[in-house]
């Protein structure tokens, strides 16, 4: 059958197939996009919650798991989208199957692609006629009923809503302010001379553990090393959500930081704003209900101190240790090692150990110095004091068997009459005589 006589119905069928293909592919593209948003939103929500409520280890492990799952899901989505995408070659078979055309459309378009031969000429018009009568069975609106893929769209909206809700509710996830203990008397077995008389010791309200929400981020390997990238990332997220004034509970250096300016008045005076508050009779005591108020006062004093320091930096008066790492407007942290840089004259500079460049919130533990007057359950032993005892003399080790003593030979006077004989006797070389 010459193709010319059947070109018109065949062209109409091809045009309809093109519309079906475009509609389907557009829908699949939307579907893929919505699913990507859903995956991204869900992953971001989980990571945000982990950053706010989890420890560094949980944040690292959970974040890695979420990232891995997200990458895997995106890969699967990509493969699925590729499989669903209708190319020109697959479109006819797909529409044929969806339209329940029993292979009529695929056969027509495949044979129509080449000129039907003589053998095919007998049934070709009938096949063309059958397809023409079945055009309504596979209209684009029928095969791809909805333009919007509702389920992926709903999942994308849900994930986005969950993320926004998490962001909105995130300030409420901020951990409770630290309990503040204000002591005016030495505790434990510490001698009064070993203590700096006035302290504001900020201790966690409960016993913070690494896994407890709000606990200071704990770097793996703890203690001494530089905080990990994950810890810094988590801290950055917390600061972004909770603001730069956020302090992890248990940060005992608050008091030290607020002590800049030295003791005011007597030995019981606190420093800075605390001292003023105390003089005004507003300083809460241990166990009072105003612990939170005290923490707020301490933080306010710290902010004041930070402002003063920034002013000094602006005038170029600040020393290098004072600069710390508070670049780009970040609040200077006073964690385990911030005591020296932030200590006032009312507090011993080495109260919490030697200064270092580490920032608060970057270490997983905070080792309280031995001399700090804390509220411990058992009295701490007094540190050694006084001059060290003199070192004992070194003892020579015993000689090995057969080793000659190192006792030096003693010179003895030789009478002049025997001098020549003695010289010859002890002379080295060829002139020596055997005794």
């Amino acid at each position: 059958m010459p193709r010319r006589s059947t070109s018109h119905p065949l062209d109409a069928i091809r045009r309809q197939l093109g519309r079906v293909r475009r509609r389907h592919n557009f829908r699949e593209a939307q579907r893929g996009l919505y699913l990507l948003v859903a995956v991204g939103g869900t992953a971001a929500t989980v990571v945000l919650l982990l950053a706010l409520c989890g420890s560094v280890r949980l944040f690292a492990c959970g974040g890695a798991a979420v990232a891995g799952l997200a990458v895997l899901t995106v890969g699967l989505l990509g493969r699925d989208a590729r499989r669903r995408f209708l190319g020109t070659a697959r479109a006819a078979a797909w529409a044929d199957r969806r339209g329940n055309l029993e292979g009529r459309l695929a056969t027509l378009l495949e044979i129509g692609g080449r000129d039907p031969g003589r053998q095919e000429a007998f049934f070709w018009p009938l096949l063309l006629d059958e397809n023409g009568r079945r055009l309504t069975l596979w209209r684009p609106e029928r095969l791809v009923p909805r333009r919007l893929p509702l389920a992926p769209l709903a999942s994308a909206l849900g994930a986005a809503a969950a993320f926004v809700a998490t962001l909105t509710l995130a300030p409420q996830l901020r951990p409770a302010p630290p309990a503040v203990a204000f002591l005016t008397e030495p505790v434990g077995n510490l001698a009064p001379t070993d203590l700096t008389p006035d302290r504001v010791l900020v201790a966690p309200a409960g016993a913070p553990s690494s896994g407890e929400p709000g606990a200071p981020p704990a770097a793996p390997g703890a203690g001494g090393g530089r905080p990990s990238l994950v810890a810094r990332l988590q801290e950055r997220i917390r600061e972004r959500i909770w603001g730069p004034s956020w302090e992890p509970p248990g940060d005992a250096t608050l008091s030290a930081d607020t002590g800049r300016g030295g003791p005011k008045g007597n030995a019981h005076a606190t420093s800075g704003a605390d001292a003023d508050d105390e003089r005004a009779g507003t300083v809460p005591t241990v166990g009072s209900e105003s612990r939170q108020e005290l923490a707020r006062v301490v933080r306010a004093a710290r902010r004041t101190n930070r402002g003063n320091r920034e002013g000094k930096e602006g005038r170029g008066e600040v020393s290098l240790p004072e600069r710390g790492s508070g670049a780009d407007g970040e609040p200077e942290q006073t964690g385990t090692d911030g005591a020296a840089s932030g200590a006032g004259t009312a507090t011993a500079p080495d109260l919490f150990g030697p200064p270092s460049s580490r920032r608060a919130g970057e270490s997983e533990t905070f080792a309280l110095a031995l001399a700090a007057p804390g509220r411990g359950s058992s009295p701490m032993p007094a540190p050694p004091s006084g001059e060290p005892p003199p070192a004992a003399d070194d003892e020579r080790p015993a000689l090995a068997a057969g080793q000659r003593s190192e006792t030096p030979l003693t010179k003895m006077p030789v009478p002049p009459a025997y001098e020549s004989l003695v010289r010859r006797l002890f002379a080295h070389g060829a002139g020596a005589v055997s005794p």
Partner: protein
Amino acid sequence: MTPNVATAAVEDFRETFAAVRREVAKVVIGHQAAVETILVAFFAGGHALIEGVPGIGKTLIVRSLAEALNLSFNRIQFTVDLMPADITGTRIINEGLDGRREFVFVRGPVFAHLLLADEINRATPKTQSALLEAMAEQQVTVAGTTHALPSPFFVLATLNPIEMEGTYQLPEAQLDRFLFKVALEYPSRPELERILGDTTAAELPTVQPVLARDAAPARVEELRQLVRRVLVAPHIERYAADLVRLTHPGSDGEAPEAVSRYVAYGASPRGGQALILGAKVLALLAGRVHVAVEDIDRVAPAALPHRLVINFAAEAASIRPPEIIAQVLAAGQRRRG
């Protein structure tokens, strides 16, 4: 050719097929699927091999088919002493009226439209091979002279799966020449009850010819030509070719595990031809003028198993070719997506 003419031709084919099946069903009780497969092979222009125990109606099917189609029918009972000349015919000396003697070719039973080769595996390979030329080329050569067989020519051979002593397995080359292999099972209880009632009654059912005697061969050839005009899209040809290749154990790792483990040799290209031809008949029966994938799937269990040569591992594991073909079909459908 207008669509109406084609539609009428399709309807004519369907009606003829249905009428023949209806007439055969008058005397052959049960075995509907087997009868349909045999009819498909007949209209596709191939030959069929029936495997079944004695007494379940193999000969009756062929005889009633010949009666319904109004075609000539011969039967050859294959025995171990059957000679090729007993099939093809031979030359004898004939004395004419003028007293002159000359060799005259006397046609054998192969010269019929429908030939029943009963228990073909009991004859020697030499005699079996006498059918090869007849089946493949629709002609026989005797004493250097080629004689054309009548058209249509349809061989229906039977195999007895029991009493294998003294039999000769059909060579693979001869098996490959059968379009389909049909397994006849024992009738079910209702069918058996009906068989007993109908065949022992005073009046036996008779088959009425569907086609006119003189026009029958031409009509059958016309219907066969119609079958060959059914449209086959390239994706159907690819699918059939995939199925054939999947039966090959060394087909680049594409073959299913059962094929790799149990098949020594896969189907030949004749297997693919059988798939397409059988699918064309099924397409016409479904009122379509094109072959669909479902037609290929329906034909495959009859067209492919007897073309597989299974190995000793399959024999030991009691794995039969139809099970392997089922896995081949599943693999083919997976490849289609």
